[in-house]
């Protein structure tokens, strides 16, 4: 049986003229599905409107506040790890780019020892960098705004990176180059 447009009229709550109302009534007399729909729909809607909103257990906001600090700390940790991982990925990519021309002539052992050597150099450079930063931090008055700090640190980090790269190039095994 074709239920249209009667089903649509019922479900969308369309305003019907007397002729349409008569048509609908005629259809309802012969169609069990639409009759069921027409009977259930207002009751179901009434039920939905009458159902009160579910309430959370008491202390919901406090539980959220308690978890907020932990979530913030976890997010910071994730950010730090992602920065470290990105830095290492960039470093590795630069290293691979550097050895790429000689890759066919270098043995795996040489590449590996060179990589370890570079990592150790990097770690020692960073440690020295940390010590230098400590001296600098002790010497600078705390009244300098955060934005200046961030800018100075960024410039310092970029210079350090360039320094480490240059150091890597200087320390690269020259005897193995053509």
């Amino acid at each position, binding site marked *: 049986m074709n239920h249209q447009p009667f089903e649509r009229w019922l479900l969308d709550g369309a305003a019907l003229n007397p002729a349409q109302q008569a048509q609908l009534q005629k259809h309802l007399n012969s169609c069990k599905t639409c009759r069921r729909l027409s009977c259930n*729909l207002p009751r179901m809607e009434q039920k939905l409107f009458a159902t009160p909103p*579910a309430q959370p257990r008491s202390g919901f906001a406090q539980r959220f506040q308690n978890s907020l600090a932990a*979530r913030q700390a976890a997010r910071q940790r994730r950010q730090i790890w992602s920065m470290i991982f990105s830095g290492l990925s960039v470093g590795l990519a630069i290293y691979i780019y550097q050895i790429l021309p000689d890759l066919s002539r270098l043995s795996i052992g040489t590449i590996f020892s060179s990589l370890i050597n570079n990592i150790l150099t990097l770690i020692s450079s960073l440690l020295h960098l940390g010590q230098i930063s400590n001296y600098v931090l002790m010497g600078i008055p705390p009244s300098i705004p955060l934005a200046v700090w961030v800018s100075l640190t960024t410039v310092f980090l970029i210079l350090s990176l360039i320094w480490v790269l240059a150091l890597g190039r200087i320390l690269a095994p020259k005897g193995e180059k053509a």
Partner: protein
Amino acid sequence: MKANPESEWLDLAIKGDDDAFAHLVQTYQTPVYNLCYRMLGNAGDAEDAAQESFWRAWQYLKRYDRQRSFITWLLSITAHFCIDQLRKRRLELVPLDVLPEEDAPDPGLSPEAISRLRDEQKQMRKLLGRLGPQDRAAIIMRYWYDFSEVEIAASLSLTVSAVKSRLHRARRELALGYDECYEVPALAERRRYESPAF
């Protein structure tokens, strides 16, 4: 704190004041939790989802467009999270109406009232469980929050015509699943048998 305290709390929260955000959580905990509860069907999952929704709101607060209603934006985050949860759950093949009941009844209610409440909750869960995630979200927003089709569309990232079609389909599904008047006699039959029904 002046004419609209909510707006003031919102301003402070956007500037990074966690206490102001806690006020917003206090204010909106019921609508957010209710949406989660109606979507997911049990108290434990609803609590987790509501907490996660507020956390996401806290994270994205700087992106919140002040032209939009805050509750619409918040419920949009909640609805999207719940829809994702339901999709994951569907992959795990767990129907909504077989989830355990975990709701602790209000201790002030009589046993009869608790029993009636439980039956109603079960019936509601069964009804909403007939719907797909987006249809369910649209119905909840329509009937519990009195959202217009435009607001539902904005919250669920759908077009208005898609919302109309989803509401139409969902109403049909719910009405046919709501077995209050399973056998309704035709008007002609009723006249013949003088039935008081309908």
